[in-house]
C-alpha cells in the first residue's frame, strides 16, 4: 500500500514536470527536427542548401527562380528553405551545433556578429567573396575586428513619412522641419488641429531599439554610454510626446506594422517607419523626409536588411561554389531587381544609381541609407544585443511612466555594464 502511494506521488510529480518540460522544450525539439531534415541534403553531391528569411516568397516567386538560376549557373542545384526571421537565428545556431549548417545563409544583419562569434561563419578571406564596391556603412554590420563575414543583399532604414493632407490642414510646411524643436512645434499644431501627431514603435523588442536609435544617435549619444545627457534628451523627447498627447499611448506596444496601420487611418501627421512601407505610402499619398537630428541636419539612422553569409562546413571545398552562387545573386543586375522587390536600397553605388534612375522617389531613401549606421558597427559586435535589450527596457519604463528617462537609462547602463563584464 505504501509503495503504491509512493509510486503515485512520483507519477503525479512526473506528470506535472512533464507537462511543463514538454511546453518548454517544444521550441527546441521542433527546431532540431527541422534542421536535420533540411540538412540531410547538404552532403549530397551537387546540391547546395540555402536558407533565407523570406517565407513570403514561395517556390514559384521571382526570388526563388533567381536563386535556382544562380545555382544552375554555378553548375549545382540549390535547395532553398525559407524561415521566419526570428526563427532563422535559432535554426542557424542549432544547425551549427549539429555541424549541419546550410551552404549559404541569408540572415538579418545584427545576427551576423552573433553567428560570427559562435564560430559558425567563414570570413570573406576564407570563402573568397568580393566586397569591393559595397558602401562601407552598409558593410559595417558584417565587419568584426577587421574581418568581414558576409555581403549585404541591400539595406533599408527609417525615415519620417508624413501625410500632406493632415499637415496642410494644420498649416504645417514640412520643409520647416529641420530639428527636434521644429518637429515638436509641428506636432503641437497638428494636435491643435484635432489630429494625431506621430506614430512610432516603442515596443520592448529589437524593433523598439531600432526605432529609438535615430533619436538616440541624432542627439549625439553613443551606445557605450546609455545614460549620457544626450541619451536622456532623446528618451525625454519620446516620453514628452506621449505625455503631451502628440504620440498615441499605444506606441508603447506598437510594432512597426501596427504603428504603420495607425498612420494609414489618415488621422496621423507623421510616422517613423521603414523603406519597406514605400509602396503603401505612395498609395495613400504620403511623402517622406529624413529624421532630423536634435540640432538640425539628418540624424544617423540604423541599417536594416540581410547579409549573405557562408557558414563553416566540414568540406571546405564547397566554399568556392557557394561564393560563386552569392556572387551571382549579388551581381548588380540581379541585386537591383531583388532590392526593388524587397523595397531595399542596393548596397553598391552602381546599384543605387540604377535604382534611382528607374524610380526617382527612391532618391530620398538612397540619401537616408547614405547616412545610416550599422547597429553592431563601431566594433560593438555581440555587445550590441546586450546594450539594445537594456535600451528598449529603459525606453519602456520611461514611456509608461514607470521611471523617469534619466533613472531608466541609468539603470539600463548599470545592467548593460554588469552583463558585459560577466
Amino acid at each position, binding site marked *: 500500500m505504501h509503495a503504491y502511494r509512493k509510486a503515485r506521488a512520483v507519477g503525479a510529480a*512526473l506528470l506535472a514536470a512533464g507537462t511543463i518540460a514538454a511546453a518548454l522544450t517544444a521550441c527546441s525539439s521542433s527546431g532540431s527536427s527541422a534542421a536535420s531534415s533540411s540538412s540531410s541534403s547538404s552532403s549530397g553531391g551537387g546540391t547546395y542548401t540555402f536558407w533565407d528569411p523570406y517565407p513570403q516568397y514561395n517556390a514559384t516567386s521571382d526570388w526563388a527562380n533567381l536563386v535556382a538560376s544562380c545555382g544552375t549557373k554555378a553548375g549545382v542545384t540549390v535547395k532553398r528553405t525559407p524561415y521566419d526571421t526570428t526563427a532563422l*537565428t535559432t535554426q542557424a545556431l542549432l544547425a551549427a551545433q549539429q555541424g549541419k549548417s546550410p551552404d549559404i545563409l541569408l540572415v538579418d544583419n*545584427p545576427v551576423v556578429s*552573433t553567428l560570427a562569434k559562435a564560430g559558425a561563419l567563414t570570413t570573406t578571406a576564407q570563402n573568397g567573396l568580393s566586397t569591393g564596391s559595397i558602401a562601407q556603412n552598409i558593410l559595417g554590420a558584417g565587419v568584426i575586428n577587421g574581418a568581414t563575414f558576409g555581403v549585404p543583399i541591400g539595406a533599408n532604414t527609417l525615415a519620417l513619412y508624413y501625410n500632406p493632407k493632415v499637415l496642410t490642414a494644420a498649416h504645417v510646411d514640412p520643409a520647416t522641419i529641420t530639428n527636434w524643436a521644429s518637429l515638436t512645434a509641428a506636432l503641437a499644431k497638428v494636435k491643435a488641429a484635432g489630429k494625431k501627431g506621430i506614430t512610432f514603435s516603442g515596443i520592448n523588442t529589437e524593433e523598439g531599439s531600432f526605432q529609438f536609435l535615430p533619436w538616440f544617435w541624432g542627439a549625439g549619444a553613443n551606445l557605450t554610454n546609455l545614460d549620457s545627457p544626450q541619451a536622456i534628451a532623446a528618451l525625454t523627447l519620446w516620453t514628452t510626446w506621449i505625455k503631451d498627447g502628440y504620440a498615441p499611448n499605444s506606441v508603447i506596444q506598437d510594432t512597426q506594422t501596427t504603428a504603420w496601420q495607425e498612420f494609414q487611418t489618415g488621422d496621423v501627421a507623421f510616422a517613423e517607419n521603414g523603406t519597406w512601407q514605400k509602396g503603401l505610402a505612395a498609395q495613400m499619398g504620403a511623402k517622406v523626409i529624413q529624421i532630423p537630428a536634435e540640432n538640425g541636419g539628418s540624424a544617423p539612422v540604423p541599417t536594416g536588411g540581410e547579409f549573405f553569409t557562408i557558414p563553416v562546413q566540414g568540406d571546405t571545398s564547397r566554399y568556392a561554389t557557394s561564393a560563386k552562387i552569392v556572387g551571382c545573386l549579388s551581381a548588380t543586375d540581379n541585386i537591383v531587381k531583388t532590392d526593388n522587390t524587397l523595397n531595399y536600397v542596393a548596397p553598391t553605388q552602381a546599384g543605387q544609381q540604377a535604382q534611382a534612375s528607374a524610380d526617382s522617389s527612391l532618391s530620398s531613401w538612397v540619401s537616408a541609407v547614405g547616412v545610416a549606421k550599422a547597429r553592431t558597427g563601431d566594433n560593438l559586435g555581440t555587445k550590441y544585443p546586450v546594450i539594445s*535589450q537594456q535600451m528598449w527596457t529603459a525606453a519602456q519604463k520611461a514611456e*509608461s511612466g*514607470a521611471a523617469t528617462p534619466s533613472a531608466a537609462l541609468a539603470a539600463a547602463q548599470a545592467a548593460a555594464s554588469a552583463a558585459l563584464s560577466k
Partner: protein
Amino acid sequence: MKAMTAEQSRVRSAARHRDGAAPAAPSRGRRQPRARRPRLPRGAQWAAWGFIAPVVGYLGLFYAYPLYRNIDLSVRSYTVTSFVSGNAPFAGFGNYAGIFESPTFAPALLNTAAFVFVSIALQFAIGLALAVFFHRNFRLSGLLRALFLVPWLLPLLVSASTWSWMLNSDSGIVNAFLQAFGIGQVDWLTSPTWSLVAVLIANIWIGIPFNLVIMYSGLQSIPVDIFEAASIDGAGGWQRFWRIAFPLLRPVSAITLLLGFVYTLKVFDIIWIMTKGGPATSSTTLAIWSYQLSFGSLLPDFSSAAAVGNVLIVIAVIFAFIYVRARHRLEST
C-alpha cells in the same frame, strides 16, 4: 505552434483528467488491502517488460531526455560560441545564483504568483458557479453551455490578439465602453499598473470553460438521490451546495486546481501576444522571462533561460506533492 501545443495539452489533460476522475470517487469505498500478486513465470515476465517497453521508451525520449538536457543546459555556462562548439564549462549553480540576483527575478516571481493565484481563484469560482447554474438543465442550457466553450476552442493566438485590440488605449472597445460611463482612458496594455490586470482578465476568460466542463461533469457524477434526500430533510439550495455538492466535489476540485495551476504557471502565449511582458517587467512572469532570455534578444542566453525553466518545473513539482498529500488526507478520513 506554441499556441497549438498549449491548446492541445489543455485538451489532452482534460481527457486525461476525465479518465482519472471517474475511479477517484468510487475508490473512497474500496479500501481493502491489495492481494499479493503471484510471481509470474520467467517467460511471462519478459513479455511484461516487452509490453511496458514502448511506454518507457516514449517517456525517456520525450520527457526524461529533454528534462535532462534542460538541467544540463542550466548547470553549464553556455555562450553562443560554446553552444556551437559544445564545450561549455561547468558552472554548477552559477546560473541559478545569477537569475536569483537579477533585478527581474523578484518582479517575475511576484507577477507569476499573482497571475497564477488570481487566475485560478477566479477561473475556479466562476467555472463552479456556472457549473451549478447549468446543472439545473433548463431549456437551451445545452446551447448556452456550448457557447461558454468557445474561448476554449479558439486558438490562443486569435483570442489574445482580439483581447489586445479590445484593450487598446486609444481605439479599443473596452475604453470606448468605459468612456460612455464617464471613466477616462485606461492604458490597459501600456501602463505598468494595468498590464498584469489586462492579461489576467484575458487568461481568466480563457480558463473558465475548462473549469466549467470539469466541475459540471463532477456535479453530474453525484447521485441525484442525495440531493433529493437533503431536500426532503429541508435543506435549501444554498445548504445543498455547501453541505453536499461542494464536499463531494472535493476530489474533482483538487485535480482541477492542480491542472489549472500547472497550465497557468506556464502560460506564455497570451502574455507574449498582449504585452510581451511589458511595459518594462510589469507583466513578466517566469515563463515570459525564460523565453526572453533565450529568444527575446539577438544574443541568446540559453543557460539562464534553462535555469528559469527549471525553477518553474520545481515549483510545479512542489505543488504536485502538496496535491498528493492533500489527497492522502482526503482518502484517510
